[in-house]
């Protein structure tokens, strides 16, 4: 009983602390209504991409933000997840639940192996070895001619029992439910003893070790969990895209995930989702803006996006969440000043 009460307590605490995450998730649930009445079905697609990338970034954030391990190779797990769907489809297994199970097991195993090997190093070496493993897998899939090699392969959307994914709204809500599950799972993990230990390891690993815990074991478990979350996002991504290619796990994607996290706020639950919203909106809107200002250069929106990233790093400590909480503090200070 007390376990259940604790669980409810944890969820309640989380609701209080992470109102923003729930607000965003509710927002995503209501978003199709807006696009329906505004007749902008294209934006549903953007929202699905935001949710998928946000989900992957949330997974990476467990390692990056809470665990302090700068993994530069998480795109590999998205890719493995996507190829789990692709390869299953290739062999005629169309059931989406099987894809997800396959992806969870494979990504968990890959995360375990890569984590075990990579976590023996730290600092720059860790960044580089995770990148190397991601590149290894990238080239592995590039050279697998049976599954399309460099060009990738088109696949059908998976079958999730009664959920017909060719109905765009059902796909949307399948992704949404996955996002809710991942969000709640991560919220629980972050507040559990495991999550607290992980954060303690980030701030001082030797002290944790002195208390009789093995930091490496906690780090590996965290790495595996984040790999699995990225894998789930990847599997759904494949179904959404109806196409799998090594491009999905290009090293720049790992960079993108990091950008999303930093943009939103490192080590926060809502941060990655918020970051994904801003990142993909910029990706959609910058070409339009640039097209309006200088039509000849509409395709060269990256020329603005690169410096924007640099600005975020130079001046945006704490990301958007940090910015929001600063505003909050300022407002509180003002109302305190006025008195009751």
């Amino acid at each position, binding site marked *: 009983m007390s376990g259940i009460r604790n669980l409810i307590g944890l969820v309640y605490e989380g609701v209080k602390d992470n109102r923003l995450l729930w607000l965003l998730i509710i927002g995503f649930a209501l978003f199709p209504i807006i696009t329906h009445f505004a007749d902008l079905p294209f934006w549903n697609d953007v929202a699905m991409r935001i949710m998928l990338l946000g989900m992957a970034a949330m997974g990476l954030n467990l390692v*990056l933000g809470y665990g302090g391990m*700068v993994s*530069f190779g998480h795109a590999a797990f998205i890719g493995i997840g996507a190829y789990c769907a692709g390869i299953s489809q290739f062999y005629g297994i169309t059931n989406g639940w099987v894809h997800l199970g396959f992806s969870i097991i494979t990504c968990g195993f890959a995360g375990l192996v890569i984590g075990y*090997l990579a976590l*023996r*190093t730290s*600092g*720059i*070496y860790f*960044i*580089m*070895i995770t*990148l*190397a*493993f991601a*590149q*290894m897998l990238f*080239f*592995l899939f*590039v*050279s*697998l*001619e*049976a599954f399309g090699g460099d060009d990738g392969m088109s696949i059908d959307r998976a079958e999730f029992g009664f959920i017909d994914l060719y109905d765009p709204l059902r796909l949307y809500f399948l992704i949404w439910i996955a996002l809710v599950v991942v969000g709640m799972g991560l919220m629980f993990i972050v507040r559990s003893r495991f999550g607290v230990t992980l954060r303690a390891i980030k701030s001082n690993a030797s002290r944790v070790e002195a208390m009789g815990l093995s930091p490496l074991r906690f780090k590996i478990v965290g790495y595996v969990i984040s790999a699995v979350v990225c894998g789930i996002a990847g599997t759904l991504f494949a179904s959404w895209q109806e196409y799998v290619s090594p491009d999905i796990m290009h*090293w*720049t994607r790992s*960079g993108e995930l*990091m*950008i999303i996290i*930093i943009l939103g706020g*490192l080590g926060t639950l809502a941060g990655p989702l918020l970051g994904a919203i801003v990142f993909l909106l910029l990706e959609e809107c910058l070409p339009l803006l640039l097209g309006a200002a200088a039509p000849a*250069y509409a395709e*060269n929106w*990256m*020329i603005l*996006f*690169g*410096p*924007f*990233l*640099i600005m*975020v*790093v*130079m001046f945006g400590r704490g990301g958007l969440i940090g910015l929001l909480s600063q505003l909050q503090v300022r407002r509180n200070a003002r109302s305190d000043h006025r008195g009751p």
Partner: protein
Amino acid sequence: MTLTLILEQTFNGLQAGVTLFLVAAGLTLILGIMDVVFLAHGAQVMIGAYAAAAVAAATGNFYIGLFLAIPVTFASGYVLEFLLIRHLYRRDHMEQVLATFGLILFFNELIRIGFGPAALYSDLPRSLSGFVEILPGAPYPIYRLWVILVGLACAIGIHIFVSRTRIGAMVRAGANNPEMTAALGINIKILFRFIFAVGACFAGVAGMMLGPITAVQPGMGEPLLILSLVVIIIGGVGSVRGAFIAAIIVGLIDTLGRVFLPAMLRSVVDQATADGAGPAVASMLVYITMAVVLIFRPTGLFPAKG
């Protein structure tokens, strides 16, 4: 037949190795001394290649292109350090990754606007085109041989500079312990900027020399960047000697692996499996090497920090 093939591919591997070394030499110092994860080093390669190709196209002389591109890349490194990188020294690695990732996007797009998305091709001067027989019956392109020689000359130059000169001693001291070096009264800021600009310059030289062999296009430096990061990690961050040895190893493994591994596999397993797995394993070989090195020697083969 096989001997000439092996010889030819070994030379190709050497050529890839010395080019990698030119990129890695500066980067290993940037990583080791300044502790900055600088991902935009590939952009310096691209800048060098474009500068050389553009000048060569404008003047019609390959060598003028080469010599004018050297100051261009030096200047670009110098300005970049002054404008951005010096503000990143005290930041953590993740922020450095992001800021320099932003730089990559910016430079690629800048080049795309300036020169268009299509690849530039530059012609070789007559004195460097054609073949030379390295063994009777084994012709080899003069240009690639020239690249190997220039690369080796640069490597020897860097080695003498680092191990014999006063500034080289400062560089080594900086790689070993930057705080102590600064405490001994060495102006570490100027040293950093100098190393950065020289490193950019060597990356640029690699780009210029690659120009006639590969396509000069936006983003051309990125595969080279990733490989040179592998080189640096294998050799040990901050060690120029390690970078040279690792670059040659990586260049040879990559080139020879791609050519001979499928054939070697075919003698062990059946044809179909070998044809399927050969190219896959060959392209992963470099990364497997790096993983193995890191597992047994987590700080690389020749760690600079003592």
